Every structure is written in C-alpha cells, then in structure tokens.
C-alpha cells in the first residue's frame, strides 16, 4: 500500500463528487492510500493566477507547505487544474528563486515555509500507471468493459505543459488509452483527446466555449464512441452540464455522456454503479452503460431545501468613478 498526500481540490467536494466517490471506492483495492492534506485551500484555478501573481502563488504554496508537513514525497491530485497549479508553482519557484523567496516571505506571515522542489506533484493517472501498474490493474478486473466504446479525453492541463516530463506526449498522450484498454474497454480513435473543453470560457464567453464543446462532442460522435472518459472535473462539467446549452446554441441534439475514468475503473473492479457516483451526470449514461449490461441508479432527488441564513454573496458595483466596490462597503 503506497501512501500519498492527497490534495482533492474544491471540485471534488461539489461538481465532481462522482470523481471523489469513485476514487475512494477504487483506491483501496488498488492499494492507493490517500492522506488528505489538513485544511487545504483552493488552488486558485485559472482565475486567481490571472489576477495577482504573488498572492496567487502564496495561495498555492500554502497547500505545498501543508503537504510537506505530511511526510510523503508525492502529492497526488486527481484534478487537472489543481495538479497543474501545484506543479507549476513548485516549478517556477525553483526556476526563479526571487519568486520563491517572496512567496516564502508571505508564507512566513502564516507561520509556514516551503522549500521549492522538495515535493513530487503528480496526477492520479500517473500514479495509477507508474506506481500501481497496468498489470496490477488488469489482474484486479472482474468485469471487463468489453463492447463499451470509449473516447479517452485527457484534456489539456495534464499532458501540458508537463514541467517534469511525466507524460508520453503533449499532443497524443497514451496514458488514458492504456488504462481504458487495461479494463477491457474498446478505445476509439479520438482526435479531440487532448484538446480544450473551453475552460472558464463557459462562464465568461460562452459562445467561445460552446464551439469548443461542440468540436469535442462531434469528434467523439464521429468516432462512434458510446461515452467520453475524462480525468478532469472542469472537462466533465463543461461537456456534461453545458451540453444542453451547446445543443440549444447550435440547434444540435447531441447526447454524449462523459464520466471520470475512476468510475469506469470501479465498474471493471466489480463495484455497483451507485457506489461510483453514477447517476449524478446531467447527460445520461444509461444508454451507454446498457451496452455492457450495467443499470444506472435513478438519480437521488436531492432537492435543495431552504436554509435560514444562506449567505447570499454581495454584488460588485461600480461607483461614480467607475471603481469596482462592494455594495456593503459603499453602503457603509
């Protein structure tokens, strides 16, 4: 049983719950012992790093400093964006010592310190292939996913920019293909495998994002895939939850489900779908999984109930000078 310091990232406790659930299910039989970082914080995604450099790297480095205290050399992240942000911060703080020094000055204000380069930041997929091993995985398969045509969707931030030369290729990486083949799925040739899902553009420039989502889904369709498989929460949300919007935008009628690779690994290891977060996707996986005789549980109706004191965030407003201010502050 190999022990890893675990950085789940914000998405794992909200929109990517299925990823979390399925990872927790398969970790034990695969021999991955996850030790979650005590009181980790957000990695800053792509937004924080684009706002303010030193605070962004300090935000990330707080996690690294906390992780270093855990005692394992490897920090494992299942989320592509978190993996890249942690790895990038570590890399740049080493490449440019001035950055490292300033970040540590900030960390010191919180009683923390991080020695750049002292941790190995790795993605779950890398650990699965290189530490656990495909043969080991294959040996544990009890229900090969024979007949399920899967499009391996690696996305961007795992194979690129690849600071530590961990991945097979920046353009056509084979890692996810190998894992899916190991669990018996039929992997289709998917030209979109390492292209962009639109990232934050679903929020700030949806038309741009819809086009990227359309390219992905149509590419998967052309390849006659039953289902897309991802390693990244952002990719999953964009392709899954924004598929309806994309269809409306283009007048199309795509129905391409997308799930996390750990969910399919879980199925192959014999877990029932309800223990793997199936049913939480917006675009139904029912038809796809029916091909391998797996029934998807009906979604649990987790209707939001009204809660007293729900903290409704304040709106940003521009004052007379065009300066952005908080509404409360202005009132005060």
């Amino acid at each position, binding site marked *: 049983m190999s022990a890893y310091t675990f950085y789940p990232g914000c998405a794992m406790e*909200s*929109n*990517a*719950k299925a990823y979390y659930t399925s990872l927790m299910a398969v970790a034990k039989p695969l021999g991955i012992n996850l030790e979650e970082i005590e*009181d980790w*914080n957000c990695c*800053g*995604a*792509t*937004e*924080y*790093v*684009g*706002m*303010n*450099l*030193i605070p962004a790297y*300090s*935000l990330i480095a707080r996690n690294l400093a906390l992780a270093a205290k855990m005692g394992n050399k490897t920090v494992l992240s299942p989320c592509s964006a978190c993996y890249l942000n942690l790895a*990038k911060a570590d*890399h*740049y703080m080493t*490449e*440019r010592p001035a*950055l490292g020094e*300033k*970040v540590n*000055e*900030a*960390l010191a*204000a*919180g009683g923390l310190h991080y020695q750049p380069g002292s941790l190995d930041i790795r993605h779950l997929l890398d650990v699965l292939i290189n530490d656990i091993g495909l043969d080991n995985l294959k040996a544990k398969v009890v229900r090969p996913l024979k007949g399920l045509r899967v499009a391996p969707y690696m996305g*961007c931030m795992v194979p*690129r920019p*690849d600071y530590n030369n961990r991945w097979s290729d*920046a353009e056509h990486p084979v890692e996810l293909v190998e894992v899916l083949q190991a669990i018996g799925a039929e992997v289709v040739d998917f030209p979109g495998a390492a292209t*962009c899902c*639109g*990232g934050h553009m679903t*929020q*700030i420039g*949806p*038309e*741009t994002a819809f086009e*990227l989502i359309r390219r992905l889904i149509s590419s998967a369709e052309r390849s006659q895939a039953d289902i897309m498989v991802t390693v990244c929460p952002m990719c999953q949300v964009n392709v899954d939850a924004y598929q*309806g*919007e994309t269809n409306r935008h283009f007048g199309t009628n795509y129905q391409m489900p997308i799930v996390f690779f750990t969910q399919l690994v879980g199925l192959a290891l014999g877990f029932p779908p309800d223990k793997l977060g199936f*049913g939480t*996707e*917006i675009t139904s996986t029912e038809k796809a999984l029916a091909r391998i005789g797996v029934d998807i549980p009906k*979604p649990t109706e*987790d209707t*939001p109930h009204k809660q007293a004191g729900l*903290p*409704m*965030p*304040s*709106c*940003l407003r521009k004052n007379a000078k065009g300066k*952005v201010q908080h509404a409360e502050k202005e009132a005060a």
Partner: protein
Amino acid sequence: MPTMTDEQVRAHLTHEEDLSLLHEVSMKTAGVSRLEMCIQCGSCGGSCPSGMDMDHTPRMVFAMLRAGMRDEVLQSNTPWVCVSCYHCVVRCPQNVHITDVMYTLKAMAIREKKYRDVAAPEFAETFVEMVEKYGRSYEFGLATRHYLKHAPLRMVGMAAMGLGMLRKGRMSMKPRTIKGMDQLTAILNKAKEMELT
C-alpha cells in the same frame, strides 16, 4: 533544473529603452518568460483553440509589446479569451511561457483598469473574492452573482442547468470555509504587499 536570478533574467533583456514594456511584462511573469525570444512564427496563434474570438493573436500581442503599444495590449481581449490549454506553450519553438504571459497581461489590465469587456475581469475578481473569503471556491455563489450581473437573460437558460447540478448534489448552496482562514488571510495580505519586478 536551470535556475536564474532576476539579474540574469534582466540581462537577457537588452536595449532597455526599446523593450521597456516587454521588459516589464517579462519581469512580472512568474517564471522566466523568455518573451524577448519570440521570433514571430505564429505557432501560438495557429494553435489557439479560441483564437477566432481574439482581437489579436498572441503573436501580435508580443509584437505590440515590443512596439510599446501599452494601451492597445491591455485593452485587447486576447488574454481573457485564453483558455489555458497550453497548446501554444508546448509548440512554441522558443519556449516562451505564453500562457503565463497572458496571466500577467490580465493582472496588468485589471490593475490599470484598461480592459474593455468587464465580464471576464469581474468574474475573476468575484472568484478571487470568494476564495479570499472562504479559502475554497464557491461555485453557487460565483455563478449566481456572475449571471445576475452579466447575463441575467442567460440566467434563465442556465438556471435549468444549475438546478440540475443542485438536484444531483453537485453544487452546494453553502460555502465551505477552511479552518485556517486567519492564517490564509495573513499570508495573502503579506503577499499583496509584494510584486515581482
């Protein structure tokens, strides 16, 4: 792993006067940007999946930085349309840290209030605000506020999706706050006093 002091980074940027804007952007970028090494080949602009929606291709932005066109660059939507896919970064024959330069340009545009379209910068600001308040991202708050402000009409369409996410338990209406919020605030406050130049 090669490490460079800021003096070495600077030493690569000769002709101080001509390159002053380029120099400024380069020094403010997290790693060693290599921005001065651009040969204008266009492999970034060719690679960009969202390039069709950009005012200028990344290559043009770099040429404009060389030309000292500060306002035009900071008003450009280019860095905001960047999807951080890193295709340009791995294909760049000169290993320019293009994506990180885009981050720098966003930060400069916000600081100087030069951006034209407010949606993207304000989304970023809201995100940052949420993180600084709770220590973790808070999608529900972020999405609601963002759509209310910038796309109230789209809110109708998105509401269905949001509801779906809520119903499937994939979006929490309650933010999670980390325990060490005071510590994080102290770190970020200290960090905000500093700049990489």
